[in-house]
């Protein structure tokens, strides 16, 4: 079964996502910081990364982390599902470079609060593809 890495500073939310994905049979690990997440990826590359956008140190950390991952040849094709509390349809404070389709190196968005049925469907679709 696929191995999914959840990267989110909100421990409650990350734990809930972990529970839901594990119940679907996936192997799940959680990291609360992008720095430790990068080490985890290098140790064991996941099949999918579920990544939050905003972290305490940087409001666009998720975007930058996604680009950092994709910049490495070994992880160029790694799918990323971005979770954000900011409405994707009304980018607010993000630069065009963050949400322009040419720049955005992610597979899909999911907006918080996320419906778990929707989340599971998106994960299934991304892993199939």
């Amino acid at each position, binding site marked *: 079964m696929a191995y999914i890495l959840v990267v989110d500073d909100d421990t409650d939310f990350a734990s809930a996502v972990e*529970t839901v994905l594990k119940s679907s049979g996936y192997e799940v690990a959680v990291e609360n910081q992008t720095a430790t997440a990068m080490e985890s990826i290098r140790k064991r590359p996941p099949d999918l990364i579920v990544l939050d956008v*905003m972290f305490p140190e940087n409001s666009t950390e998720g975007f930058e982390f996604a680009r950092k991952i994709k910049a490495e040849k070994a992880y160029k094709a790694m799918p990323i599902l971005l979770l954000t509390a900011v409405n994707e349809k009304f980018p607010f404070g993000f630069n065009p470079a963050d949400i322009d389709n040419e720049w955005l190196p992610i597979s899909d968005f999911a907006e918080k609060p996320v419906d778990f049925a929707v989340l599971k469907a998106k994960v299934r679709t991304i892993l199939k593809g």
Partner: protein
Amino acid sequence: MVGTPAILRTESPHVCQCHDPHDQLLANLRWYCQLRWIVVLIVTAYALTSISFSGCFQRIGLVAPVYWPLHLAGLLVLANLGYLAHIRRITKPEDSRPGRMNLWVQIVTDLILMSIAVHIAGSQETHIAFSYVIHIALACIFLPRQQSFVVTMIALVLYTAVITLEISGILPRSSVFITPARMPDRVHDSFPIQFLQTASVSVFWILLWFLASHLSTLTRWRECELERSNQDLQALQKNRQEHMLRMTHELKAPFAAIQANAQLLLGGYCGELSEKALELTSRTYQRCSKMSWMIQEMLQLANLETAAQKPMPAESIEIAECLRWCVTHVRQIADQRHIHIQEEIEACRTWGQVEHLKVLFNNLIVNAIVYSHENGAVEISCRYGENGAPVVVIRDHGIGIPGDKLPRIFEEYFRTDEAVKHNKDSTGLGLAIAKRVVETHGIRLSVESAIGEGTVFTLVLPAKPTEENNWRIGSQQS
């Protein structure tokens, strides 16, 4: 603007270096050259006319044909080509000396040629001397006060020199008139009279310099202030956006976590719950959803207000696609209330932001469904109106809106008593959001309603981008 930042600062403590001085200087130099081309045209036209119609000229008392304007035009052309060639070679932004030298050469050369023209045309017989005023005014606009004063003095010296040389006989008197005309109050060429005449012109020019340079300094100061205020506003806007972004996260993230945990409990991920526990968890989940939705709408409104301040590229939009997307989006709510949605949607195009239009249509359609009676119908139509603008009509046959409350329905958080009774869960922001989109898109929106009979929203959308709706045409324009 000519001058280094140090010179500008000494003029006034409030003066600031607002524009890139190098770019501004080059722009001024090129503009002077363009003005000179116009003068060349005028002077050449005068010469050619005097040559072609010398008989007419002589009949009206003008000397013709005259060739000195052609010589003058030739000198101006050569000078202009030289200036432009020099401007093209100015490449170092950090060294403004070549640019300033070019400007001063232009000014002094123009004044000398101007003085020659004044002498030939008739310094005393014509009013051509007042054309020095143009040079003084231009100097006041483009140079700091001290430098514009120097230009004024140069003009005065040259004009006085011409007069003096003519009176002393060193320079022969000249005129464009065959019989030189005299001003009514000039009786003879005595030195005192000439001195008085020249002095009065000098006083006039100095007063002009004083006034124009002061106005110019004030204008430059105001411009700098405005630019600084604009920069402050932009910084404030950026801070506000960052703050709103952080606030969005701080508001929504906790609800996201609460809802996530509630879903775990309701979904049975933590084992079976008692009926009471399920009911309480379900209510917790619903309250969280409502709070999340309210935050969402508040942020949508804030987003739209921000968007209105910073126009975004307009794109051509197929309205039918937007409406059909909305209908799909609201199908679940409509089915729950057994509301039938009738569509008469023709292909029509408008200009704007597709996501904003989706929010607008979605809010109006949801309202129509929510405030309909069960088993009712909502009608959505879209077609081109008589003037070629697309018209969207959203009609319900529900509770309606009292006439006296109609003017207030677009206020934030306003809800009629009937609406509150019918649907407790609404936030009161849906129509405020719709109004915002309407305003930013230049859409004409009208509402008709009657209690117990329903409500009709009619939207006339723009067929193309206009200045009024402040859109920039984006790269998608066909």
